[in-house]
């Protein structure tokens, strides 16, 4: 249902295991109904500090969970005759928590995709989202009743979502280019560059609450969009073969559509960011979105670290290849020249184009031209590595060439081959000399991975945009993001300085009185 739901699982786990709130499970208490949710995806579920608006205490913490999912969970627990326990669980940990018995159900704004159905079962739908069109209240389309009424309307939707593709169902509408996120579309709508955008009902309710100048057009039945239940339905996840599944279905059947709509309206009105201000915005952002921020930080760190290390190795390899002396047979010289030429093309292309374009070309291009549906994170790692490689190739070449000729000559004079000379003598010096440049690249990568939000990699900046899109606190959110970037780059710089000093060895040497003393301490 929501785009971020599909993102990277495997590497994320690495970072998230740290964050997953440890849950104490007692199988003895059979009378509880343990429901897992993120408590961070309003209006479906969120975390708050008190029990107001029917919020339920989160197990093992002093905070409370509120939202549509919580209200649903309360109703279901009641009809099961069990006591509701809310277990705050990271998104990627929900399914494992369910199958391992740490929770009994997932009520977390989850769509029953075929992929998920392989691992767990789903009940009937507990919320059916619906596509709506957001328009200006004072605009031409404010009274639209059906898709046909949007003739000649300039419409758009979020990039890479079924919202955008649904526009094709409106005959005669002008399909504007897709936009990156909701804040962009809201600004576009306000400025009049578009007449409306396609969204889902919860977002629609949120935005109409926040902005009195817009209106949500709901289109009923045949007048509306045809959508795939996989995209719009939300269901409760239960263990395969769970006997309670039928009872839950039964309970859900008793909650009417209008009751559901009311609950959603309430949830949207109550969600923490739309109105009731926290004491301290800084703490509030961390409390509410700490997980998302840490996840974003982890992804940023992962991409920039892997990208720098792999890029460094690419650069080193190219540096070595390009500094092979062009001597020997004609064939050898020709081969070396061809390789050299190819490598300079690579360097020129990747240094001469923006990374944001490279990412888009690789990610969308590969999908379009060859039908490769690359994982976003893999695409991100690939781009940053290749890009860094192109930069560091020249730096490494310079590093190798800046090593004094005398070092080569002395090594050759001892009988070392070119490769031996490189690996034993030249590269250690070249690497040491280019370490400050590598550090610099690392820092640049930490910052520049932000452009990867173009392919929706949920790195730090993307997380920031997502949060800002939810809490409408653009300035504060980006200030927090800014601070995290600063902490990251500062720490990385210090760590690599330390490595440099480590490589330089001790400032002083110990005078050895005799040979016997020497043999022990200097293992070479």
């Amino acid at each position, binding site marked *: 249902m929501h785009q971020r739901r599909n993102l990277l699982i495997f590497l994320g786990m690495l970072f998230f295991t740290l964050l997953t709130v440890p849950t104490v499970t007692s199988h003895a208490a059979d009378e509880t109904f343990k429901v897992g949710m993120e408590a961070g995806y309003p209006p479906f579920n969120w975390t708050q500090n008190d029990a107001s608006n029917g919020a339920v205490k989160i197990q093992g913490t002093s905070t409370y969970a509120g939202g549509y999912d919580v209200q649903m969970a309360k109703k279901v627990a009641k009809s099961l005759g069990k006591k509701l326990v809310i277990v705050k669980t990271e998104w990627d940990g929900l399914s494992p928590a369910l199958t391992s018995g740490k929770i009994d159900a997932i009520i977390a704004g989850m769509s029953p995709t075929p992929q998920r159905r392989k691992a767990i079962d789903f009940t009937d739908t507990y919320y059916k989202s619906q596509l709506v069109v957001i328009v200006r209240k004072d605009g031409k389309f404010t009274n639209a009743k059906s898709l046909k009424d949007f003739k000649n309307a300039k419409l758009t939707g979020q990039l890479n979502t079924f919202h955008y593709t649904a526009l094709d169902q409106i005959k005669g509408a002008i399909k504007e280019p897709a936009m990156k996120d909701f804040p962009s579309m809201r600004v576009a709508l306000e400025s009049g560059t578009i007449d409306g955008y396609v969204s889902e009902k919860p977002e629609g309710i949120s935005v109409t609450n926040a902005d009195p100048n817009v209106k949500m057009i709901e289109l009923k039945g045949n007048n509306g969009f045809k959508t795939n239940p996989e995209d719009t339905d939300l269901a409760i996840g239960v263990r395969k073969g769970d006997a309670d599944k039928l009872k839950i279905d039964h309970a859900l059947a008793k909650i009417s559509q209008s009751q559901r709509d009311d609950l959603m309206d309430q949830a949207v009105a109550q969600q923490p960011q739309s109105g009731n201000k926290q004491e301290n915005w800084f703490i509030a952002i961390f409390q509410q979105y700490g997980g998302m921020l840490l996840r974003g930080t982890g992804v940023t760190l992962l991409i920039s670290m892997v990208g720098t290390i792999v890029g460094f190795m690419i650069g080193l390899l190219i540096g070595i290849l390009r500094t092979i002396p062009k001597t020997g047979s004609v064939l050898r010289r020709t081969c070396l020249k061809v390789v050299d030429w190819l490598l300079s093309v690579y360097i020129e292309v990747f240094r001469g184009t923006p990374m944001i374009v490279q990412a888009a070309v690789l990610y969308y291009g590969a999908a379009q031209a060859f039908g490769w549906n690359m994982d976003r994170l893999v695409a991100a790692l690939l781009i940053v590595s290749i890009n860094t490689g192109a930069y560091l190739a020249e730096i490494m070449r310079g590093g190798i060439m800046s090593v*004094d000729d*005398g*070092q080569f*000559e*002395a*090594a*050759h*004079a*001892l*009988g*070392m*081959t070119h490769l*031996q000379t490189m690996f*034993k*003598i030249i590269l*250690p*010096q070249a690497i*040491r000399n280019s370490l400050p440049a590598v550090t610099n690249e690392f820092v640049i990568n930490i910052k520049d991975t932000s452009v990867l939000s173009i392919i929706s990699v949920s790195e730090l900046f993307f997380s920031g945009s997502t949060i800002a899109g939810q809490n409408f606190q653009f300035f504060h959110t980006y200030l927090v993001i800014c601070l995290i970037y600063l902490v990251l780059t500062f720490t990385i710089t210090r760590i690599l300085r330390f490595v440099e000093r480590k490589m330089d*060895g001790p400032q*002083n*040497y*110990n*005078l*050895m*009185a*005799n*040979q016997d003393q*020497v*043999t022990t*301490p*200097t293992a*070479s």
Partner: protein
Amino acid sequence: MTNLLEVQHLEKSFGEHQVLKDINLQVEPGEVLSIIGSSGSGKSTLLRCINLLEQPTSGTINFHGDNILATKFDVATYRAKVGMVFQSFNLFNNLNVLQNCVVGQTTVLHRNVIAARKTALEQLAKVGMTPYVNAKPAQLSGGQMQRVGIARAVSMNPEILLFDEPTSALDPEMVDDVLDSMRALAHTGLTMILVTHEMAFARDISDHVVFMDLGVIAEEGTAEEIFSHPQEARTQEFLKRYLNRV
């Protein structure tokens, strides 16, 4: 007696510039050959041709009777047998003193580390550098670096050792330490070719002396012949300049 090294009709040009012209030389095992001559006369180029840091333009160089310029010749193995001590030391900056003397032995001669360290420590002891085995080159004085340079070369057990002005870059008070180390080496019977401006030292230890001028061998003979009874006017001129300076 067979020659260890034999240079015949050696020529070397850098582009249009002919630096060595028809050089002929023989070095017997155990011999110490000194090459003297003014700056730019081609002494370094000759040494560098001998261990193939420069490719000669024409002529032949035989080592144990094998033509080292032949295409199939194993250059690396040859270089391991021909040591070189540089004017600017060229110690490996990334390695400490001991590692400098070990790395060639392990990578080129495939000696095990224990044996290589043993040899290196012996040679470092001979040049009086044992206390500094853990030091990096940048932490040493010029004289100390050059003694390590000698130990590094000798650790390879070369059959012949080339010195290119080993003391020219040193402060005067450090020269003697280095010369002492070289003298000791000469006494072990190691074959040496020495380019130097230390005339007294050359006279003292050389069996044979070659005077080069403008890329040719202008005069050669025993140390006694060259230093006491030079025949050529340019040799006399050169020596006079050097003796005046001393």
